[in-house]
């Protein structure tokens, strides 16, 4: 090989050079082809593996790709990675984002209808904090598989995590409410102040006249929701100032902040069968109305008040003989061309079934008489009996009014049209109105009294009186004094005359003795005459002398006590 190798060919001698030893070969050189074969097997197995491992590819539509990373963001179910985001691209109209996800082979069942996908990001809400782990690990796509077996590869991603996993034990129910209040998705549902569920979703009703809420009650507590269960909104602090006074109510501190609802069975006997999946309930505004017996169908009535109804608010109660049967829903002004006045039209919703058994009886009676079923004819009969609506003062402190329906004695007759819709209930002035009228009358009368002239006359009279008194003081009183002195003298004289040692007294004693003797003689005479009346004519008989003699003998004993009694 080298240039300086100048040795001539065939220079080495055969004998000088050693001969190679001969040994048996151990393996064939062709075995080397095992190496590429092995490599091919490995390569093919890798390829086959990757083909076999590749699960279905699905597309999920999101509003935004925030936090998503092509090739990195995992898809997780119960925190197990079941796939990975492959591509992220905008939709044709740029309104949303299409995320292509390569699912694992084992996650084949996730590419079915009903599977839900959402992006798990850290969320901080009033109800709590979720997805805090994604702060460190980055966002991921959560998945929840449904029941369906139908294949599907195009999904619409949820913008927020579903409140309930498909496999979670429990039941969902649908509640109907007038408005959402302070409820939100995730708001707690309480049973005896223990959280047993939450609000899953809400939407406006199709007619826009209410809100439907879907709630989920976790098992095993879902069995406490029976067909008779009442739900009520326990959100926030409920402060109400009405004719009933001030009310303040809360369920728990959490509901004050985040809103919530509660449910319970009504007191008394009720149906205990657990409610079925997606059973419909009404969501009441508060516990009081929820626990009240069912209201039945509402009836709209109208009342026309001639006087001001200041203090009558919407929601003021309507009472029938003290039983609350409804609420005022509107207070509007009207104009009457004939009387040139502004009557007030008050609209109210009443629930006749709140009357309880009275309503049942009235209904039965109405049916018996063949009245129309909504009982307006029966109402007309009640109006004939004096049923009137009145705006009464419910709370003297705040001046709140309420509508009272009462039977008024001697109410003036009114025409009642049972076919009018809404029903027009005749009214009468309120009790307070009457009081005011009477007070005004009194004030009027007081006004009419001629206080001026009375005062003038009184003044003159007093002047005259003054002059009279002066006269009395100047003349009459000194004379009176003299008269009194005269009287004094007379009395003194009389006192002297009556004293014990006065001659008048002694004369009186002797005079009385004389009178006594005279009386005795007179008695003797009378006695004699009674025995001998003929003596008046014939005179005294001789044989009768003895008897008058016995008579004086009897007299001295009667005389002695007389003398004894004399002082």
């Amino acid at each position, binding site marked *: *090989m080298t*240039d300086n*190798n100048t040795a001539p*060919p*065939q220079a*080495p001698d*055969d004998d000088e*050079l*050693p*001969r*190679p*030893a*001969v*040994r*048996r*070969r151990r393996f064939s*050189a*062709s075995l*080397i*082809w095992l*190496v*590429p074969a*092995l*490599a*091919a097997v*490995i*390569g093919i197995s*890798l390829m086959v593996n990757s083909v076999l491992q590749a699960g279905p590819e699905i597309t999920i539509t999101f509003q935004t790709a925030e936090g998503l990373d092509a*090739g*990195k963001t995992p898809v997780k179910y119960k925190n197990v990675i079941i796939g990975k985001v492959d591509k992220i691209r905008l939709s044709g109209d740029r309104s949303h984002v299409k995320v292509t996800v390569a699912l694992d082979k084992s996650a084949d069942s996730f590419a079915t209808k009903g599977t839900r996908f959402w992006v798990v990001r850290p969320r901080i809400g009033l109800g709590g904090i979720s997805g805090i782990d994604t*702060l*460190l*690990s*980055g966002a991921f796509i959560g998945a929840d598989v449904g029941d369906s077996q139908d294949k599907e590869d195009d999904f619409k991603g949820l913008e927020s995590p579903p409140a309930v996993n498909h496999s979670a034990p429990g039941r969902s129910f649908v509640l109907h409410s007038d408005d959402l209040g302070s409820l939100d998705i995730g708001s707690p549902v309480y049973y005896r102040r223990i959280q047993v569920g939450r609000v899953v979703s809400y939407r406006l009703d199709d007619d826009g006249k209410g809100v439907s809420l879907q709630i989920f009650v976790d098992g095993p507590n879902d069995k406490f929701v029976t067909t008779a269960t009442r739900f009520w909104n326990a959100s926030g602090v409920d402060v109400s100032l009405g004719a009933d006074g001030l009310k303040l109510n809360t369920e728990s501190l959490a509901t004050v902040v985040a809103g919530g609802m509660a449910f319970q069975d009504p007191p008394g006997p009720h149906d205990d069968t657990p409610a079925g999946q997606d059973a419909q309930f009404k969501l009441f505004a508060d516990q009081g109305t929820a626990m009240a017996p069912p209201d039945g169908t509402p009836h709209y009535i109208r009342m026309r008040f001639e006087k001001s109804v200041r203090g009558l608010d919407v929601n003021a109660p309507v009472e029938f003989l003290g039983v609350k049967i409804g609420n005022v829903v509107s207070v509007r002004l009207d104009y009457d061309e004939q009387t040139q006045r502004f009557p007030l039209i008050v609209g109210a919703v009443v629930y006749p079934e709140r009357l309880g058994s009275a309503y049942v009886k009235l209904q039965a009676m109405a049916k018996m008489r063949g009245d129309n079923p909504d009982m307006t004819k029966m109402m007309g009969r009640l109006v004939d009996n004096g049923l009137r609506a009145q705006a009464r003062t419910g709370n003297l402190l705040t001046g709140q009014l309420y509508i009272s329906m009462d039977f008024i004695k001697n109410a003036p007759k009114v025409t009642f049209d049972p076919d009018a819709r809404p029903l027009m209930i005749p009214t009468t002035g309120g009790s307070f109105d009457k009081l005011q009228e009477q007070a005004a009358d009194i004030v009027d009368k007081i006004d009419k009294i001629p206080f001026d002239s009375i005062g003038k006359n009184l003044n003159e009279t007093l002047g005259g009186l003054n002059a009279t008194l002066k006269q009395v003081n100047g003349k009459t009183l000194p004379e009176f004094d003299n008269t009194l002195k005269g009287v004094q003298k007379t009395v003194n004289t009389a006192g002297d005359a009556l004293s014990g040692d006065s001659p008048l007294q002694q004369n009186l004693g002797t005079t009385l003795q004389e009178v006594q003797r005279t009386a005795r003689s007179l008695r003797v005479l009378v006695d004699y005459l009674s025995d001998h009346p003929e003596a008046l004519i014939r005179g005294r008989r001789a044989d009768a002398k003895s008897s008058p003699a016995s008579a004086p003998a009897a007299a001295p004993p009667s005389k002695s006590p007389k003398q004894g009694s004399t002082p």
Partner: protein
Amino acid sequence: MSAPAKVQALPRASELGLIGCHVCGLVCRCPGADGGVAANACCPRCGCALHRRKPASYSRTWALLIAAFLMYLPANLLPIMRTASLNDIDDNTILTGVLELWTKGSPDLAVIVFTASILVPMLKFLVLGMLLISSQRQTGWARVQRAKLYRLVEFIGYWSMLDVFVVSLLTAMVRFSVLSRVEPLPGVIFFGLTVVLTMLASMSFDPRLIWDGRDTDD
């Protein structure tokens, strides 16, 4: 051109019936006919198997080269390294790593990695394939350049292990639990296999084959 021509004029060992030991350099008298060597001749001094050219050089080199190429595909398609930091898990293949280096402001490093990890193995396949084909066809085209090319391939062969070293070093050193972590991924094994197999292929190629076939050329 004068020197090779002169060298080509010289007689070959096989023509003289001689054979040299690869290991100890002892020259023996070859008994085999046709300038060949006995199937199981051994060096009488060191006991090493004697052969005029590396045995089955073509088939071995071809086999190893094909195996290396088969490994080269997964080495580039599979991720070789996982970088897990606080909020991010990043799997990188060689090419994405190069792209990342390029876009994140280290074009020099990107060039180095690209050269060492993608360009050099690719060049080795091309060069060895070219050498094999040209030698099998016993063409006399650019023999000196081909020999130089072979020496270059042999020399730069182990530098292709750069990526494997980077991954193994990072794996060993970047271990901060949650904060930061580097893990090797299957791609690096295939990449290492590719490098080893290409080195073996270039080793099993006998550069003397380049100079064979003088007779046909002449």
